[in-house]
């Protein structure tokens, strides 16, 4: 039998010098069924054996918004004038929780799926993509719940505002938010393979970042030129949250600032995927 030693003849070549900066999109596409099933698993498994079931997805942001509305809205009067505090906080908390969710769960993928990853091969990026997608499904449900609240406020005349052409920006905002969370999560995930400390720090870090984002107060109420303002302007999540507010409750927004947020998102995703692919190669040897 003729032995052709043509390189193309092999289907898989395992080689340590393989380029780690290339993303094998074809392979991820081949595993799309797994992606769908993992998203399904995420959504199904969490709420099994709970009484409220998927309603929990709405309860958490609602309770958080209520707390914020009472403490920061009614007592500290930090919310924006002219917008009902509950609606104001929901419009910030819902996207913020989405961001926190994406970041946290992406950051945990390597450690969380360690058992799986030491036993079977699949494109590792599938795991964080799946958790990000399942988080966005929850987000859409929460957005729907928000719409119901907004409708109630609108009909009862408490908040006279109708959706405008800003609605077209919603998909862009979602994409920018996802890319910031996903990218930052991947970077943290890669670091946690070496330093577990970072995984523990992350929850605290996200909490801290929330106070440096216009979640509990609108950006317009932060005096210009101050330290806090400068932090807020550096934080790529600031234009994202402000943008969501503009779409959801009709507050004022300088859309040009979103360019900064989107650029940060793109850089984070590229850097995140690169460091993740690099960390993932030796990950199975470390745990």
């Amino acid at each position, binding site marked *: 039998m003729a032995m052709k030693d043509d390189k193309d003849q092999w289907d898989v070549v395992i080689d*340590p010098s393989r380029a780690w900066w290339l993303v094998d999109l074809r392979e991820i596409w081949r595993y799309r069924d797994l992606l769908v099933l993992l998203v399904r698993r995420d959504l199904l498994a969490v709420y099994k054996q709970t009484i409220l079931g998927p309603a929990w997805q709405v309860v958490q942001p609602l309770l958080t918004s209520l707390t914020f509305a009472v403490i920061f809205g009614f007592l500290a009067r930090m919310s924006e004038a002219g917008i009902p505090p509950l609606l104001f906080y929901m419009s910030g908390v819902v996207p913020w929780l989405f961001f926190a969710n994406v970041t946290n769960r992406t950051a945990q993928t390597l450690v969380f799926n360690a058992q799986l990853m030491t036993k079977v091969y699949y494109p590792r990026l599938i795991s964080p993509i799946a958790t990000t997608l399942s988080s966005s499904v929850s987000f859409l449900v929460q957005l729907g719940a928000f719409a119901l609240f907004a409708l109630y406020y609108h009909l009862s005349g408490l908040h006279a505002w109708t959706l405008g052409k800003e609605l077209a920006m919603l998909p862009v905002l979602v994409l920018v938010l996802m890319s910031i969370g996903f990218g930052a999560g991947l970077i943290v995930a890669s670091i946690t393979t070496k330093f577990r400390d970072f995984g523990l720090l992350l929850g605290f870090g996200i909490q801290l970042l929330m106070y440096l984002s216009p979640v509990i107060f609108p950006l317009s109420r932060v005096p210009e030129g101050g330290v806090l303002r400068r932090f807020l302007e550096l934080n790529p999540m600031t234009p994202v949250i402000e943008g969501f507010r503009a779409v959801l409750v009709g507050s004022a927004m300088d859309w040009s600032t979103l360019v900064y947020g989107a650029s940060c998102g793109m850089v984070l995703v590229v850097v995140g995927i690169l460091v993740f692919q690099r960390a993932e190669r030796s990950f199975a040897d470390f745990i």
Partner: protein
Amino acid sequence: MDQETVIRVEDVHKRYRLGIIGSSLLTDEVSALWARMRRRPDPRLLVEKAHVQQRRGQYFWALQGVSFEVRGGDILGIVGRNGAGKSTILKLLSRISLPTKGRIQLKGKLSSLLEVGTGFHPELTGRENIYLNGAILGMRKTEIETKLDEIIAFSGIEHHLDTPIKRYSSGMKVRLGFAVAAHLDPDILIVDEVLAVGDAEFQRKCLGSMRKVADSGRTILLVSHNVNAVHNLCNSAIWLDQGELRMSGGTHEVVRSYLEKYAVETHAQEWEAEHAPGTEELRLLGVKATCEAPGGELLTSHPLRIEFELLNLGITDDDLNINLRVSTHNEVVAFVSNMEREVGRMVWEPGRCKVSCTIPAYLLNEGGYRFTAIFRRNNQRLFQVNDAVILEMRQENEEDLPYVRRPGVVHPKLRWER
């Protein structure tokens, strides 16, 4: 049958770090960085030098320069002792970790079964887990759908399909996992010790499906501690020894050399009179195990003879007793034979003499046994030789059955009547 090379492993090396891996603390790194900034020596090197060296300096080569090729349709067995690199090579082949150096090339779809039921989620039902597990192992959804009925039938848990698998027994989970695995249809299948789980009936089912995969011209790689399994299932084998490829070729030769090399088996021992184990009165000069099977192979279907050569230096009466203790590798005593009780007392001449004990055919099971000889006088132990003989019994190949080791320390042939 197609005989082209489907797996080519070229000069593969794999290095692991020794010591506490993956858990270095941030504080350590920060203090090191701080010291570097002040141009002071790294504190980690000052304190507990040895400890730190173990943590970062030492590497361990799990594989060194391993090369081999597997042709399509081969069933390749990988033998070797613990730590020889068997699992490492499987991990590299299944792309779980990357080689440090070298290259592996594969042709066709590869599925590896390093574990059964990988990725099962306890809250999901059996049916949902079939889909999930199948997808994790690389199956397309449509593929799972077309095979669903077969998978369910194979698993034998039709009635619990819509129960969350956290309520399954461990046996049920294994069966479900294997049912999915058995329907993977890979071109290359990698199996690690899967034979060790499940009851005999289930093992038979698994082996049957492995045979089916092999018969359809696909390639199987099998790692097993059980040399018998490799011997019976594989047509070629490689032997890994401390990370290096020691031998590759036909199963028979590889397995034989492997068993010869390792003290896994000690069929015979001899000692010179001065160094022989024993006392002033009696010494053991040699011990030897022989089987009456053709070619001297140790088959359970033939009697096994254990022969002792003794040097009698001072026993003039009939008060000497020998006990032969037969146990398995995990120290389970199969039985003890007491010479005095079996044949009564014997008069011993001074000088050399031979005593033998025959274990009838169809008493031992296949697998490893250790024989310990205990010499007694006046009901007191004179001396004892542990593991005087260590051997591996084999069962003759029964044509109609796939290889299955029957459980139990012995496997006597009994008479059944009705």
